[in-house]
């Protein structure tokens, strides 16, 4: 076991992690630990854009953007956080431009902007051009630009280091003569893929920026590596997870594959049709139609299929129609996604509509933080030195449904805030002593996986998990489907104790790590399902057929899921609530 010492340790090198690293790295001794080479992170897969009320092409302002974010999230957004994000969006985009990001340009040479779902002028009057973009490769450009600037600032990366545990200690603190225990972060434990050795990183500040958890589902736009590690590690160490019942299903995944076709397609004019050739969104959202927020479009599509108007031999998808758009326009604005349709489905989008169906896309929930990116261990207590940003975190700027282009924004705004705050804290704080035997838990976890000879296969358990999540915890949910899912997950968890990992070596043992990742997936699936069971209403991305209405009286609250073995009905997950922060907007019915 090796021990390293840094002021700031950042877990993850996607957009949020690297944005944090650029700030922290210039101010404090910083290391970034990442299980992937930085440029492999899934931020690079983002397509459509990053929004900011630059008003480069038409009138716009950050207050409209705040409103859209709050309404898009079905009023479960913390409004102070949304306001921070919408205000700082403008600088976040300009920062990236100055770092070199090659945005598409207007004829005047300014950053070009385009439409995206749910972004409107003057509180819902009409769609507005707010998304800054680089063709349909915005995430790629953000990831590359941030990596380039990390190279510029000599940021220290530990590539292919898997963080598997967070070292937390309970410290006695005395405030106003009252002594109590306070959680403190001391560092992290990581596993070096190349050597199989454990490395302990002691740090004054730790920033968790490990991304999402899409792989709990079978049909997903997420990478194989998005297994909820950061959420899982925090949860196991007693940190609650907020709003985990809200998972976004993006309307347009390539049918059967889940590979994403950006909403930019609809922003550029593409429309959805059912098997009758009907533009069905005219029925569900008469004003903004195909550009309604994702939860509404995804449910409408699923409903078309349920009611027998799906296309294809099994009537199990709908069609994304770009055939009325100019091929030259498609090539200029949507080159990559049209190539995906050609490569993976053999469909020519110039002339044929593309088969699409909702795909699991984005976790609205995550590790609770305040607007300074500080992690909360309950509704208000900050864990000193612990930060989270990006998809792993829940600030909450997305509430129950994230608007497109608000995540690339979130990772930049709150990544930067986390980096600054972590460095600032590290400059004044002392190291917390590493607990005795810091790797004990991690070693036990790895030993169990390596030595068990029960013969169960990781891949088989994972597939069954993804199948039940797709079937029972997708866009339509009921108490019955959720309870059934929980009991299936319990069964899978029991089988998980009897897995066999075939690779017994130390070098690049990805077989072993897939087993560890499955452990996180099982935990997160349980949390998501338990939280969905707890929320007996329908709001944003969470739709309960047995409670189809939004219920502000009882559920205008965030959910907080704690690990608690005594909560047996919900598989060891205890649910509590946390008030939503309101500043300017009163909840209204969400109509588009």
């Amino acid at each position, binding site marked *: 076991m090796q021990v390293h010492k840094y002021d700031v340790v950042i877990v993850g090198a996607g957009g949020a992690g690297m944005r944090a690293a650029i700030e922290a790295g210039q101010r404090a001794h910083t290391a970034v630990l990442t299980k*992937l080479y930085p*440029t*492999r*992170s*899934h931020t*690079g*897969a983002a397509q459509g854009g990053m929004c900011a009320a630059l008003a480069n092409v038409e009138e716009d302002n950050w207050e409209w953007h705040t409103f859209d974010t709050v309404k898009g999230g079905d009023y479960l957004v913390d409004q102070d956080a949304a306001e921070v994000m919408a205000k700082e969006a403008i600088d976040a*985009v*300009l920062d990236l*431009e*100055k770092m*070199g990001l*090659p*945005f*598409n*340009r*207007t*004829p*005047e*040479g*300014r*950053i070009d902007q385009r439409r995206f779902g749910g972004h409107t002028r003057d509180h819902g009057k009409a769609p507005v051009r707010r998304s800054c973009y680089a063709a349909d*490769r915005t995430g*790629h450009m953000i990831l590359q630009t941030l990596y*380039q600037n990390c*190279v*510029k600032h000599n940021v220290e990366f530990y590539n292919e280091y898997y963080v598997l545990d967070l070292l937390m200690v309970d410290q006695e603190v005395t405030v106003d003569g009252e002594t109590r225990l306070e959680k403190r972060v001391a560092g992290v434990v990581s596993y070096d893929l190349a050597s199989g050795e454990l490395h302990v990183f002691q740090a004054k500040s730790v920033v968790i920026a490990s991304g999402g958890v899409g792989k709990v589902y079978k049909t997903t736009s997420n*990478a*194989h590596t998005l297994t909820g590690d950061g959420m899982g590690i925090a949860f196991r160490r007693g940190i609650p997870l907020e709003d985990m019942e809200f998972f976004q299903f993006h309307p347009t995944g390539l*049918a*059967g594959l889940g*590979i994403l076709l950006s909403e930019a397609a609809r922003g550029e004019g593409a*429309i959805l049709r059912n098997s*009758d*050739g*009907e*533009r069905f969104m*005219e029925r569900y959202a008469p004003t903004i139609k195909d550009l309604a927020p994702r939860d509404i479009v995804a449910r409408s599509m699923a409903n078309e299929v349920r009611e027998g108007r799906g*296309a*294809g*031999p*099994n009537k199990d998808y709908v*069609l994304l*129609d770009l055939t*009325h758009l100019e091929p030259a326009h498609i090539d200029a604005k949507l080159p990559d996604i049209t190539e995906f349709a050609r*490569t*993976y489905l053999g*469909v020519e989008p110039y002339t*044929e*509509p593309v*088969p699409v169906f909702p795909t699991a896309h984005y976790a609205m929930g995550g590790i609770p933080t305040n607007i300074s990116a500080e992690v909360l261990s309950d509704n208000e207590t900050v864990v000193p030195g612990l930060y989270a940003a990006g998809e792993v975190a829940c600030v909450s700027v997305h509430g129950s449904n994230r608007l497109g282009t608000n995540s690339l924004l979130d990772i930049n705004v709150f990544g930067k805030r986390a980096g600054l705050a972590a460095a600032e804290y590290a400059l004044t704080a002392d190291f917390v002593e590493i607990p005795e035997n810091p790797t004990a838990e991690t070693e036990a976890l790895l030993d169990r996986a390596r030595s068990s000879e029960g013969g169960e*296969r990781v*891949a088989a358990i994972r597939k069954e998990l993804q199948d039940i999540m797709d079937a029972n915890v997708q866009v339509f949910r009921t108490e019955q489907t959720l309870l059934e899912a929980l009991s299936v997950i319990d069964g899978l968890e029991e089988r998980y104790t009897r897995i066999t990992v*075939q690779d017994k*070596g*130390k*070098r*690049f043992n*990805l*077989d072993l790590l897939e087993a560890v990742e499955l452990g996180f997936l099982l935990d997160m699936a349980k949390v998501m399902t338990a939280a969905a069971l707890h929320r007996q209403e329908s709001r944003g991305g969470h739709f309960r057929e047995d409670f189809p209405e939004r219920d502000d009286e009882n559920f205008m609250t965030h959910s907080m899921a704690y690990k608690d073995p005594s909560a047996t009905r919900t598989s060891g997950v205890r649910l509590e609530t946390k008030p939503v922060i309101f500043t300017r907007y009163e909840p209204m019915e969400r109509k588009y």
Partner: protein
Amino acid sequence: MEKEPASKVELAPGVGGGGEIPTFDVTLKVRRYNPEISDEAHWDEWKLTMYGTDRVLDALHKVKWEHDGSVSFRRSCAHGVCGSDAMRINGRNRLACKTLLKDLDTSKPILVEPIKGLPVEKDLIVDMEPFFQSYREIMPFLISKGHSPTKERLQSAEERERYDDTTKCILCAACTSSCPVFWTDGQYFGPAAIVNAHRFIFDSRDDAGDMRLEILNDKEGVWRCRTTFNCTEACPRGIQVTKAISEVKQAILTRKI
């Protein structure tokens, strides 16, 4: 302005592809190497039943998940955007996640090997450090002198278009590791580093073009390129790699960007 699309259209029969997905059998042969077990590499093969839309990555996953968990390779996004899984497939550098099995000759075994010219660590995993070292040496970040404006720098659509092609690089190393010059001389910067230098040299906002040209004028720089076009053929992003290299050569000669 754009016109509203029709509320309802007549769809051609069978529109949107689909239909019964055929299955077929393939033999996958993977070059194995694990120095923990032996210094010698060897080939393992598996017969697999696969589906019409499956890619080489799906076949590798099937092997790893159902037959031999020790088969090791990198992958993440599974749709050609992260650059993790460049490998030699039937002798050509490609991304496993972007290579459909049905586009290969499935009557013969499909041969999968690690990319060449970088040290093999285990099976299909190579040490990428030398590759990233060359990348870092060309100063792959915007260097701009003078004041930065309060809002964005202006750049015309034409200026933006000038370097568009080389912004698409995902650092997968398919090009560099397909280059015969790189195989014999690991010191050569290689096509990917030059592509990334090109991205900045031809960016109207960048002021360090001369410095980068100087770096690439080195004996291990652009002049080692023998214009074999392997790199252009290998690039999964369709970047005109050889063209980018000759534009850099031209710029060194004329000192005009």
